[in-house]
């Protein structure tokens, strides 16, 4: 089926060429990092994880989010999601590829990476994260590819794909839970040391992930003959809305616990993020932006009239994505490391090179999504599943 990714319109070639150029260009920054070390990043002795690990965490959420389509389809036989399932699975593949990429660029000795297997250490959560992420990748590749191939040949899906799909649903919850365990099992990092962190991770994943997926699907509709059903989109938007409500609620629980109990350790990180501490207020404008956009997205998503407005929906989703990204992609890591173990503040901001390396990985993810979605939409077109009506096509 991969040959379908080799033939396309000039626009398709230009987009792929652009991505390849982007990856090639930005990989220079990574080569520079390999030669110089992680000193080219903004990380320090006190803030020893930064933008890379934050992106990794955010993208594990995107990987897990495909389950919001797969679960209703397989567990509740919600047929309207039938033609969306493959996109959820393919998005998960791209997301896991990016996750692994961000881990690789973050470690100081990437050539020793396989030590995690050679000297496998089950008491380290990082070991389990490696297991669940790679397992999830394999599950999605196997199920997604096989089912699509069967669809193309108009054959029923083999029984084992159903078993693996059920497994992947449970597995999706595990990948983000284990990723949260990376953080919440550490003593002395008060912003992370909370039982609700895994639940918060899942809630933010299940709103932001499907939001990104839906945005990409809406974009796919623009450039291909594929058309997701209106009801499927409405249902997905509903799922996103519920998950975002839970996400905001969970954060409010954190705030209550910290401030009503008046525990300095629990309060300090939140105070640093939203008000500034010891003269440092680097993140304050970002965190308030996130708060306003988060609540704003709810205001646009909760009323059914606004949510079902397809002109407005992409904007609501976009601000939701920005809000959750600031929360998880900036605040989580920087707020976790500040205050430092010495009750001081060490500001962190990614450097230009750090952002270029991140762009390289995002570019790779975009390329994987492009190629997989190209294959999927071509197959859907071939078998005539979820296609735009002829009249609409003619109008284009």
């Amino acid at each position: 089926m991969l040959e379908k990714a080799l033939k396309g319109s000039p626009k398709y070639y230009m987009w792929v060429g652009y991505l390849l150029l982007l990856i090639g260009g930005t990989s220079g920054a990574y080569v520079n990092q390999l030669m110089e070390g992680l000193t080219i990043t903004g990380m320090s002795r006190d803030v020893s994880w930064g933008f890379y690990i934050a992106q990794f965490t955010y993208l594990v959420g995107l990987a897990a989010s495909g389950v919001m389509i797969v679960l209703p389809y397989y567990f509740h036989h919600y047929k309207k999601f039938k033609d969306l399932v493959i996109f959820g699975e393919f998005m998960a593949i791209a997301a896991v590829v990016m996750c692994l990429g961000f881990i690789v660029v973050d470690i100081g000795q990437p050539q020793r990476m396989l030590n995690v297997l050679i000297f496998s250490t089950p008491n380290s959560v990082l070991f389990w994260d490696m297991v669940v992420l790679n397992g999830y990748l394999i599950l999605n590749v196997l199920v997604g590819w096989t089912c699509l191939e069967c669809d193309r040949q108009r054959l029923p899906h083999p029984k084992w794909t159903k078993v693996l799909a059920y497994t992947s649903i449970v597995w999706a919850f595990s990948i983000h839970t284990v990723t949260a365990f990376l953080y919440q099992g550490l003593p002395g990092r008060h912003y992370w040391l909370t039982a609700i962190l895994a639940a918060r991770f899942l809630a933010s994943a299940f709103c932001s992930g499907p939001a990104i997926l839906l945005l990409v699907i809406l974009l796919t509709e623009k450039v291909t003959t594929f058309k997701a059903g209106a009801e499927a989109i409405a249902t997905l938007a509903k799922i996103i809305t519920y998950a975002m409500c839970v996400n905001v609620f969970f954060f409010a629980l954190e705030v209550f616990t910290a401030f009503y109990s008046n525990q300095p350790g629990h309060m300090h990180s939140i105070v640093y993020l939203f008000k500034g501490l010891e003269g440092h207020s680097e993140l304050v404008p970002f965190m308030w932006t996130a708060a306003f956009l988060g609540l704003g997205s709810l205001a646009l998503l909760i009323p059914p009239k606004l949510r079902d407005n397809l002109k407005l929906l992409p904007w609501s989703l976009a601000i939701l994505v920005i809000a959750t990204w600031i929360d998880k992609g900036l605040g989580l890591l920087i707020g976790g490391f500040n205050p430092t173990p010495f009750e001081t503040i060490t500001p962190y901001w990614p450097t230009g090179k750090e952002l270029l390396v991140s762009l390289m990985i995002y570019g790779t993810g975009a390329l994987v999504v492009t190629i997989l979605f190209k294959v999927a939409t071509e197959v859907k077109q071939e078998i005539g599943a979820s296609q735009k009506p002829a009249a609409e096509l003619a109008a284009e």
Partner: protein
Amino acid sequence: MNHTRRNFLKFMGVAAAGLCAASAGSALAVSGAGSSIKEPANAANAKRWGMIIDTQKCGTKEAIEALSKACHSVHNVPDIPGNQNVKWIWAAKFSEAFDQHNNYMDEAHETCQYVLLCNHCTNPPCVRVCPTKATYKRADGIVAMDYHRCIGCRYCMAGCPYGARSFNFMDPRKYLDPSKLNKEFPTRMRGVVEKCNFCVERLAHGKQPACVEASNGGLVFGDLGDANSEIRKLLREHYTIRRKPSHGTEPGVYYII
């Protein structure tokens, strides 16, 4: 045999598998013919190594910097400016060292400086989180590191509640004076984490840790598992505290306040 593509591929598959098995078998030889290993005869041993720091005797910036100098020169620790620095033992204020906030502190303690180093915890979170066992706890309580194995994931740095660990963001040799190196000890390389090792290489030769030697009695090192040791005697005679006891890590470094 039918000359079909199927048969050809089958044959090639079996041949390839055979080749792999043959080459794997030959790599199973082991090293060390008729040899044995043992501990050095003059090694200092303990059930549980620990340290006690008398903050009255060793409480000024200058006094502690002498300790850092002794340690850092023995272990080839570079002096890197900025916040990507590396340090094994250093000085800090009371509020940075201990999470026991107090108002209206007496001047002596307010201005006093405290020696900070790896606590060599009984329950070290760094060992718990390391995905490769590059950091590990020895039977004598020393939390040690194998720099050969460290992949530089820095999970241990996130795990340590004491900020005892440093990462080599760059090649440390750029900040070392080649003429002043200790040629009996290695440097580190870029991309690995490092920290205090309680001078495990000196204990193997019966010597005290470098900082203890340089402290004029301000630091005492010994066996916490031996009720008759000097360190246990000092612990009996003085009120001591440890850093952040609420984390349950059970530090092996005690402070006489």
